[in-house]
């Protein structure tokens, strides 16, 4: 049996642990223009300080340890030979609300710096986390929930095989307009093909 498959390493990025001291100021910087949090569509959009981000990291690690229903990875640049780029923090990806009895979880992924989007990093990281979810955690299906105004996110998830399954009409309000909440799903059997 082949076990030397690089589970957490892709072409452009790898999935790594949180490094609270170094990562917190970088992630705090992402929250300054609002777009990062707005595109995720989960929390109130506001700038976070390094201290708040560090607190969130502690909560995430505590939850991973105690509840065993989520997995969280930082997305880092893999660029051997380029010392200024190697290991640079690009974003995060998370499997949360894992329900082991049904084999399901919710997938979230974000690339923090707008200048780093559309370079294939998200796609590379997505492939890694899907492999991890289906081949290591043996999940049956993944859920994703994306605000209708996040076109890039929808495109990324659909390219990976996610199907739009529900449209929660007008579930988001932003910039004076109403947007649907898009619920997507990916079954392991579809991903394998």
């Amino acid at each position, binding site marked *: 049996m082949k076990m030397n498959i690089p589970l957490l390493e892709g072409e452009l990025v790898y999935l790594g642990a949180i490094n609270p001291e170094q990562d917190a100021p970088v992630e705090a910087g992402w929250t300054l223009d609002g777009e990062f949090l707005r595109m995720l569509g989960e929390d109130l959009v506001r700038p976070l300080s390094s201290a708040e981000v560090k607190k969130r990291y502690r909560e995430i690690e505590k939850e991973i340890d105690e509840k065993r229903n989520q997995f969280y990875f930082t997305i880092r640049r893999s660029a051997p030979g380029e010392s200024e780029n190697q290991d640079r923090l690009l974003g995060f990806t998370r499997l949360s609300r894992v329900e082991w*009895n049904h084999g*399901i979880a919710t997938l979230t992924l974000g690339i923090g710096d707008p200048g780093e989007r559309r370079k294939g990093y998200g796609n590379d990281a997505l492939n890694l986390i899907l492999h991890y979810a289906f081949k290591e955690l043996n999940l*049956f299906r993944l859920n994703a929930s994306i605000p209708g105004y996040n076109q890039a996110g929808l495109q990324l998830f659909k390219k990976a095989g996610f*199907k739009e399954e529900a449209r*929660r009409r007008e*579930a988001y*309000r932003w910039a004076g307009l109403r947007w649907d909440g898009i*619920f997507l799903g990916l079954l392991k059997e579809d991903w394998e093909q």
Partner: protein
Amino acid sequence: MTISEEKKPIFRGEQVYLAAADPEADASIFARWMKDAEFVRLMDTDPPKLMSVGKHKEWLEKELLEERSNDELFFLIRTVQDNRNIGLIGLDGIRWVHGDAWVGIGLGEREYWGKGYGTDAMRVIQRYAFEELNLHRLSLTVFEYNQRAVRSYEKAGFTMEGQARKFLHREDMRYDLIFMGILRNEWERMTAKK
């Protein structure tokens, strides 16, 4: 500004009214409902599990007295006729910025299933959500195998918004998760007709 007509008390419906749960008085009834595995399987994705009355009381105390959060609310459903506790209903994941919330409902007393009590409770919480909380929409999910609930939600004005494939795994079968929603203007049109 005047209020043109005498309004019905906000928490009162035709067959039921909504009331606050009391940890001391109501823990044992919650413990009894949760022993009904069918009830739990219709309401929750979590596996049925049993907790002592004391643990239920602790949970209610935490929920109602200590960690009162502003993004969830839940109520007991009581019959108008004899003030009997027959189930619970609540809003959670309230997103105030967007005006959206999730509704959850369950009737623990089986003899009240299929008689309009749940639909009536749903109408009460809709009025509360739209008139009092000023929400823009309500969302819910229901399991494919719970067609009685689907009919009740349709009767209360909810529209199908989609279906997550093979979401649940129970008794060796996979079932879809159905998404439903109602918008404020749909609710206004529906209630204006009456």
